[in-house]
């Protein structure tokens, strides 16, 4: 209080230039808070003669501005990924800070060669086999890659994709997927005469999917593969049988295992919804809680334990925001009046 009075006293002698150069006055203009507002309002009431000077000083300071330059977000993510990769590599070969810098340097060199732009919050690059890139996503993370042919892959959580570093001009484009990903494939064919390099092939455990320019979602979890086609055409080969491939049209949703077709439907809306996880939403058609929990288990690596078997049959319509597991659980708990108890890797579910 004494300090404030002293300050108030001091300011009575001030003129324009003094106010401009006063740190506390500057802070009021650029970092205002209740305390400063209150002080200056009070002071002005007590010293109405200073209004002119204060007003102009305020105006001058307020107008000091600077342009903001923002980095390319792709550069930020690429840089972060290099740093994280260096951290990972260092962890595997513990050699103290020096090892870290060696790893960091190597990653910097590698980054120049990597023709990929990569958006993800936590993703670790590792060169497992010399000619191949491997991209993993952790639980709850999504990453987006642009392939050398500028096709786009969005990789869902808990998934892995591998592909060759060099894409041969004469060989088909090939990728290996574990988990779930959405593909938007660049169409290379101009003359309806399909050259080898124009082919785009995705391998999963159960299937081989061959593509022309198109967008589709492949979801391979728990031994089954669901393919939802949104645009274009694809051919699906089952990996363990020599039967004729299934030709899919837009809107088709195909559920298979490695030997046979389990289910096939066509609904363009449902096919589009299959990749709604890209927008951090979960849109299943008329889903039961047990289906939702399976999805969340695959995405976040937790297991759900239902205390009451009735829970499994409850249904929840409408999209669920899956920005984080907590968000998803919150929505479900309020919509269905159920409760979740977190116990490490397990989540217990009960009626409220």
């Amino acid at each position, binding site marked *: 209080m004494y300090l404030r009075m002293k300050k108030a006293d001091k300011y009575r002698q001030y003129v*324009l*230039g003094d106010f*401009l*150069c006063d*740190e506390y006055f*500057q802070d009021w203009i*650029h*970092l205002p808070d209740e305390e400063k507002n209150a002080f200056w309002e009070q002071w002005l009431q007590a010293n109405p003669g200073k*209004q*002119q000077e*204060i*007003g*102009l000083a*305020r*105006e*001058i*300071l*307020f*107008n*000091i*501005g*600077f*342009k*903001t*330059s*923002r*980095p390319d977000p792709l*550069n*930020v993510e690429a*840089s*972060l990924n*290099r*740093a*994280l990769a*260096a*951290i990972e590599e260092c962890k595997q070969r513990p050699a103290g*800070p020096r090892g*870290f*810098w060696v790893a*960091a340097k190597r990653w*910097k060199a590698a980054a120049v060669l990597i023709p990929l732009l990569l958006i993800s*919050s*936590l993703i670790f690059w590792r060169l497992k086999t010399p000619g191949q890139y491997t991209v993993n996503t952790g639980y709850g993370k999504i990453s987006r890659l642009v392939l050398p042919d500028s096709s786009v892959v969005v990789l869902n959580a808990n998934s892995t994709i591998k592909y060759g570093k060099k894409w041969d001009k004469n060989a088909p484009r090939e990728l290996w997927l574990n988990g779930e990903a959405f593909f938007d494939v660049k169409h290379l064919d101009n003359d309806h005469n399909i050259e080898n390099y124009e082919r785009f092939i995705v391998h999963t455990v159960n299937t081989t999917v061959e593509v022309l320019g198109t967008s589709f979602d492949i979801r391979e979890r728990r031994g089954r593969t669901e393919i939802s086609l949104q645009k274009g055409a694809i051919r699906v080969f089952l990996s363990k049988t020599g039967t004729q491939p299934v030709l899919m049209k837009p809107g088709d949703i195909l559920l298979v295992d490695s030997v046979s077709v389990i289910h096939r439907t066509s609904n363009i809306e449902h096919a589009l919804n299959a990749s709604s996880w890209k927008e951090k939403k979960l849109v299943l058609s008329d889903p039961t809680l047990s289906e939702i929990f399976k999805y969340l288990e695959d995405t976040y690596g937790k297991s759900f334990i239902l205390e009451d078997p009735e829970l499994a049959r409850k249904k929840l319509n409408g999209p669920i925001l899956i920005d984080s597991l907590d968000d998803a659980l919150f929505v479900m708990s309020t919509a269905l009046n159920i409760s979740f108890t977190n116990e490490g890797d397990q989540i217990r579910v009960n009626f409220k």
Partner: protein
Amino acid sequence: MEISWTGIEVGDKDAYSHAYRKLYERFYNYGVKLVEDSALVEDVIQEILMTLWVNREGLRAIKNPDGYYYVLFRRALSKRVAALAKTKTIDGAEFDPEFAADVMMIRQETDQALKEKLAAAIHTLSARQQEALFLRFYEGFSYEETATILGISVKATYKLMARSLLTLRDKVSVPLVYIFFLLKENFH
């Protein structure tokens, strides 16, 4: 700019990633004002942010990580530019990054006459003065922090800042009647 440092010191990679993005943007915005070559700026940013991870355990001991890493970045950038300049010029003269002349601007849509006067006034400020104003008023650093970043004494910083602000005041010599009018408009 709010940057959260907690969690990094215990090796939380999410916390690190979060701070990484924020600091990257912040250093970039500052760095390209000092050095035109944005690739060089980004290279130095990566170097500093990796240092942050390597020295994460030391964060506990740093009272003001915001200012500390800002200073580290400014110095690393100067060092890199100096090293580059040495390979290019024969005399090896001291080379310090200079704050770009065209990044300062008048922010508010205030009265046109005042705006024009202020805009003309800022062009008379030196690069050093503009950088000091940037650190104090854009980044919100205190005089002490600004002094450390600029590598000069606090006293010199007060002088530098006062000279800049008084230059602005002198160039904005407005008739008293006008001031009175302005105050009625803008001050309640």
